């Protein structure tokens, strides 16, 4: 499934970007002289027939070469991905760890206090988290933590050990945390009414042991599925946060490449993200029967 999926994604993207009027050299203020245009097109292979460009690029990608970038002319797309993608990935993983911790905690607390005030408060927090876009969260956090309290810098990136990771990670984590909290809560409620939990209680185990050893472990199974898919979402959807907080990740590059018609960067990013989403789905499919033996037959 992975290969045909990526092939379709590549073909769709290729057709769409080449069907869009205007090319990479017509985006500046001044028109490029015809001779220069011809040379540029020849140098980047844009004068070849479209089907040839399609197969050439595909061939190069299969050999690990995503082509030259049109806008940063000294670098190839592979270089750009190597520089920027790890940053997005690190940011995404930190955000995801925050989200998993906060979301599961919130969901479990809500389920234990089912239909009490605590449950409603947790529910309100998670639905508010779903309703607030990440760029609003970043802006508000910068306003509060950087401008008012002067705790962290107002932007930039210096690895995941620096305080600069806090604002983008929290902003990115809010939405997945809220989604995970809702899934955990409903899954926890299912488990808490299961027979084996009643058995555990009946044999006199104290409530903490019942919850941590018997309930949570089973309740987290469906959450794993959602979690892996959300991780792909978080890594690929980080460009608002990256743009505002000036994190040099891949999301920022994508937005720039769209406006400047940087074909190889657009294709490279879309393919990379498509592969990431597909691989995540694949991992879930493989992992799930291992975690839950009931699913394997």
């Amino acid at each position, binding site marked *: *499934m992975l290969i*045909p*999926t990526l092939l*379709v*994604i590549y073909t*769709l*993207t290729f057709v*769409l*970007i080449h*069907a*869009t*009027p*205007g090319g990479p050299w017509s985006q500046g203020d001044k028109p490029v002289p015809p001779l220069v245009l011809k040379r540029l097109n020849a140098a980047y292979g844009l004068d070849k027939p479209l089907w040839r460009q399609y197969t050439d690029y595909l061939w190069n990608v299969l050999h690990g070469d995503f082509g030259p970038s049109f806008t940063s002319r000294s670098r190839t797309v592979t270089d750009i991905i190597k520089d920027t993608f790890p940053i997005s990935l690190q940011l995404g993983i930190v955000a995801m760890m925050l989200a998993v911790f906060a979301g599961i905690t919130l969901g479990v607390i809500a389920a234990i206090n*089912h239909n009490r005030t605590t449950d409603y408060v947790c529910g309100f927090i998670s*639905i*508010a988290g*779903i*309703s*607030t*876009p990440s*760029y*609003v969260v970043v*802006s*508000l956090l*910068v*306003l509060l933590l950087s*401008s008012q309290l002067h705790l962290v810098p107002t932007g930039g990136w210096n690895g995941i050990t620096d305080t600069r990771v806090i604002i983008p990670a929290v902003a990115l984590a809010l939405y997945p945390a809220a989604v995970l909290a809702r899934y955990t809560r*409903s899954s926890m*409620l299912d488990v808490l009414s299961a027979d084996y939990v009643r058995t555990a209680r009946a044999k006199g185990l104290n409530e903490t042991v019942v919850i941590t050893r018997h309930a949570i472990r089973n309740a987290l199974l469906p959450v794993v599925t959602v979690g892996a898919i959300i991780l792909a979402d978080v890594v*690929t*959807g980080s*460009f*608002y946060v990256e*743009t*505002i907080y000036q994190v040099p990740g891949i999301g920022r590059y*994508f*937005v720039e490449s*769209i*406006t400047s018609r940087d074909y190889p960067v*657009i294709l490279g*990013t*879309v393919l990379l*993200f*498509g592969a990431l*989403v*597909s691989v995540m*789905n694949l991992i879930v499919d493989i992992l799930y029967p291992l975690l839950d033996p009931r699913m394997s037959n």
Partner: protein
Amino acid sequence: MATATSALIPSAEIAAKAGRVEGFWGSALRQLTRNKLAVISAVFIIVLGVSAIIVPEIYPRTYAEQNYDAITQGPSREYPMGTDQLGRDIFIRLIFGARISLTVGLVVQAVILLIGVPAGLAAGFFGGKVDTVIMRIVDILYAMPSLLFVIIIMTYLRGTLNSNPGGFWEYISKIDKATGGLVGVYIGLGLIGWLTVSRIVRANTLSLKSQDFSTAAESLGASRGRIMFRHLLPNTIAPIVVATTLGIPSAILSESGISFLGLGVIPPMPSWGLMISESIVSMRSHPYMLIFPAMAISLTVLAFNFLGDGLRDALDPWMKR
């Protein structure tokens, strides 16, 4: 929202007039009105929708009108929410933004229903090869990085419209101008968003198809089309209503996000996302410019989510918790 109430109220009224036992929709409506958050949300959405239609017609200023004597003023009696860097009235821009957002929410859902419902119905009903082909397409599109895809479609459509291709594109171009350049967003979000609805409809059709009432209809000689549209589809309306209501906020969020990046609505047409991005530069000196549109997005999305959750609880007796 509009689809939800208009679908709910008439059947409840008919049931009341006829003095019959309360039907499915009647009991769902009663359930829904007992949920305070859902009722408050519905009222909020109706007020927002009505003011988005009426206020711009009676308000003294328009969204693009600039007053250079009143630049970046805080909220006052004349300007209830203050003015921005260009001396434009934030209140009326916010109301216009509501028009944009609600339109995006509704139009995108309409596109999604137009594609997703027939696809899901066909896949579930015919099974076999039809099912395999449709579900393969769904699987592949699920792996598409959705926001990137929407942005690419957007750029394609805008580029094509700007180059004046004429003919059929003329009409699209007119609609595009009237909506502030968002036709690409409608189409893009619609093309990527129908997957979930089609999966829901398919799963429902599959389970309904094997139930006694469809077998009965079939043995009475009902045609395939009749079984599909008169027997299976009406029984799938409830999950479709829920999915549609919960899909509106995500369409609104996507549009505001794309506009925030500067790839959506064309200025001076306001969009909540665009207003937020314009206010970020000066958020330290003029926080109100950021707070109002941010609150507008969050409250609207929150209201649709509450309403959708309420509808789900009311319409799905097995999901009640």
